[in-house]
């Protein structure tokens, strides 16, 4: 991990030196910082580049791989501090607010009004992208996080008829799978994936309203309630169905266990679908997707977005506006999301080219938005500030990996972590 980090730092340093040397940028150039470097993602970015070049702008790629965006964030900080920000950078969730409060983000309201973004985005999503009522970032896609993926072959072998809809069904199925000699749950024992599972459990046990109170608003009463206790008990029960090699395993290696039918279930966002499809598996036939038990009428969203930085050059500003409009355009939303495995963030898009899992996701996205079941994912940095988020993740991971911590103590630790500022 660090090797790649160092390499990137070096690469960046050279790039940076070259940049400062050619300080006079040509008009209409957009430099875009992103961390989409893997197969399907890179293809999606290439599409965006093509569309922008068709509008007569120059695209300058600034990809920083690795660390789930941590490396890119580090590079971005040094660029902004040195007064030379890129035109756009991949930033999401409350981090957008943090950057905006530093006063470095550009106001996108003129583009947003012309393109009627307010009517195209659910309010909860739009709020993430706005700072003091003005758009400062533009959304690219929606990932649903509260998925349960299943291997058809493994379920069949264990005699499980369908994907479980409740936690009771889930544990009954897990027992059967264990008896059949398979791994019931392919888990990845890393901070972020521990929490991905945990937030699906909270959503399934307590519902969207409770999720919002406890994990988004961090209400101490909700965090120490009976419902939270039940969530933690359910969360711990899952651990008995996880194989011993899980700690530290990367998420895609866990997905591989499901792909190879060695494991039956995985709690994971819909980027997992990309792995299944890349392995030649067909959704609905070789592998199954369902909302995590008990959370069918709720939806934890993870929206990738680009924040735009204030620029001095008028040509670059124009290009920046065009970039924002292009990203929200129907053409890009469709092409990009077909490649990435997510769904368009824009409402009322035709979904006929997408697969069954994406159609279900899109249907639930629209429906949950109406009834208040649409909530931001905490695990994926959509809901709370990084400091509190990190502290809660620590507490949850500690509870998961150390069986000696009682449910009551676990709850106390989480509530204490939630108070971190």
């Amino acid at each position, binding site marked *: *991990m*660090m*090797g790649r980090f160092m390499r990137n730092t070096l690469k960046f340093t050279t790039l940076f030196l070259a940049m400062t040397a050619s300080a006079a940028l040509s008009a209409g150039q957009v430099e875009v910082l992103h961390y989409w470097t893997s197969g399907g993602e890179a293809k999606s970015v290439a599409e965006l580049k093509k569309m922008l070049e068709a509008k007569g702008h120059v695209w300058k790629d600034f990809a920083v791989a690795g660390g789930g965006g*941590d490396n890119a*964030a*580090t590079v971005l*900080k040094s660029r*902004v*501090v040195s007064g030379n920000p890129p035109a756009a950078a991949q930033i999401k969730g409350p*981090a957008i607010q*943090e*950057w905006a409060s*530093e006063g470095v983000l550009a106001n996108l309201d003129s583009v947003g009004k012309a393109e009627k973004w307010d009517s195209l985005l659910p309010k909860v999503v739009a709020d993430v992208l706005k700072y003091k009522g003005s758009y400062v970032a533009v959304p690219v896609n929606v990932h649903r996080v509260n998925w349960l993926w299943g291997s058809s072959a493994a379920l069949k072998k264990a005699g499980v008829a369908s994907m479980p809809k409740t936690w009771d069904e889930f544990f009954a199925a897990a027992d059967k799978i264990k008896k059949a000699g398979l791994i019931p749950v392919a888990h990845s*024992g*890393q*901070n972020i994936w*521990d929490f991905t599972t945990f937030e699906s459990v909270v959503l399934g046990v307590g519902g969207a309203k409770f999720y919002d109170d406890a994990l988004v608003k961090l209400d101490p009463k909700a965090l120490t309630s009976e419902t939270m206790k039940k969530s933690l008990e359910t969360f711990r029960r899952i651990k008995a169905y996880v*194989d*011993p*090699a*899980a*700690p*530290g395993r990367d998420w895609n290696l866990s997905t591989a266990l499901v792909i190879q039918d060695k494991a039956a279930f995985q709690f994971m966002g819909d980027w997992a679908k990309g792995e299944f499809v890349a392995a030649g598996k067909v959704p609905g036939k070789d592998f199954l997707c369902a909302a995590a038990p008990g959370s069918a009428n709720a939806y934890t969203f993870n929206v990738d977005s680009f924040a735009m930085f204030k620029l001095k050059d008028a040509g670059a500003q124009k290009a920046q506006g065009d970039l924002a409009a292009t990203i929200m355009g129907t053409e890009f939303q469709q092409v990009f999301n077909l490649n990435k495995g997510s769904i368009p963030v824009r409402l009322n898009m035709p979904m006929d080219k997408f697969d069954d899992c994406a159609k279900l996701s899109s249907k639930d996205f629209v429906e949950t938005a109406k009834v208040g079941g649409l909530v931001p994912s905490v695990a994926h940095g959509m809901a709370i*500030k*990084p*400091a509190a*988020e*990190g502290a809660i993740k*620590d507490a949850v*991971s*500690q509870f*998961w*990996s*150390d069986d000696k911590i009682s449910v009551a103590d676990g709850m106390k*630790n989480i509530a204490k972590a939630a108070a971190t500022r």
Partner: protein
Amino acid sequence: MSRSFESLLPKLVVAPAFVLGFAFIYGLMVWNGVLSVTASRMLPNYDEFVGLAQYEKLFEMDRWWVALKNLGIFSVLYVGGALVLGLVLAIFLDQKVRAEGFLRTVYLYPMALSFIVTGTAWKWILNPSMGLEKLMQDLGWTSFHFDWLVQSETAIYCVVIAGIWQSAGFAMALFLAGLRGIDDSIIKAAQMDGASLPRIYWRIILPVLRPVVFSTILVLSHLSIKSFDLVMALTAGGPGFSTDVPATFMFVMSFTRGQIGLGAASATMMLATVAAIVVPYLYSELRAKPHDR
């Protein structure tokens, strides 16, 4: 004119290194110290002076205490283990064995690897479902059980094992050099007096090796305080944060959690720890010099 130039030349040559060293070592240390008394979050921010609040926050965090405890366990076992194993290896190699050159290279080779490689290799070896445990079970020893790496109480000892494996050869090389420097006639004299071999080693050779032991401890202990790459590659701080050490703590707080002030405070604490070891050593060294020469 030429004489003054000659006298200036060494200073001129040394100056750039001095300036760079000053700016990039001591300058950055000071900067770090300044950051640790500000409320800096995502970006450095000097507007708000908060005194020692970041340090108070630091010592209230469970995670920091876990990191400190791990550093204690790791330093003691890693330095002690590498020292003892290195000494034993060196003594064995010193018995005029055949193919000594070959064996010496074998033992020293791990030092040529980076900690990243060591960490990754040991991650696979210690992983219960693909490494040692699986191998033993496949060979027929089905009750064999070794899952330290995935248990939060024992994972730190896996880091120690990998660290010792990497550094024991280095300690061996230092000790071997020390052993070779001992005058044969002393040992022969002891043998004439009828001293047994273990006694010779215990009463004569080890005391002579004292300076070597000292410098080995110094090198290894500062390696252990800085340890970052080994932990990152082997466990990434997990399970949970049970193998966190101060260096990984600092990195996470400063660069992924947007708490630069807190990260700077932890870095200052690390600096203080290193200084607590190095300063007394330097002091004793520098003070001893005038008498020696």
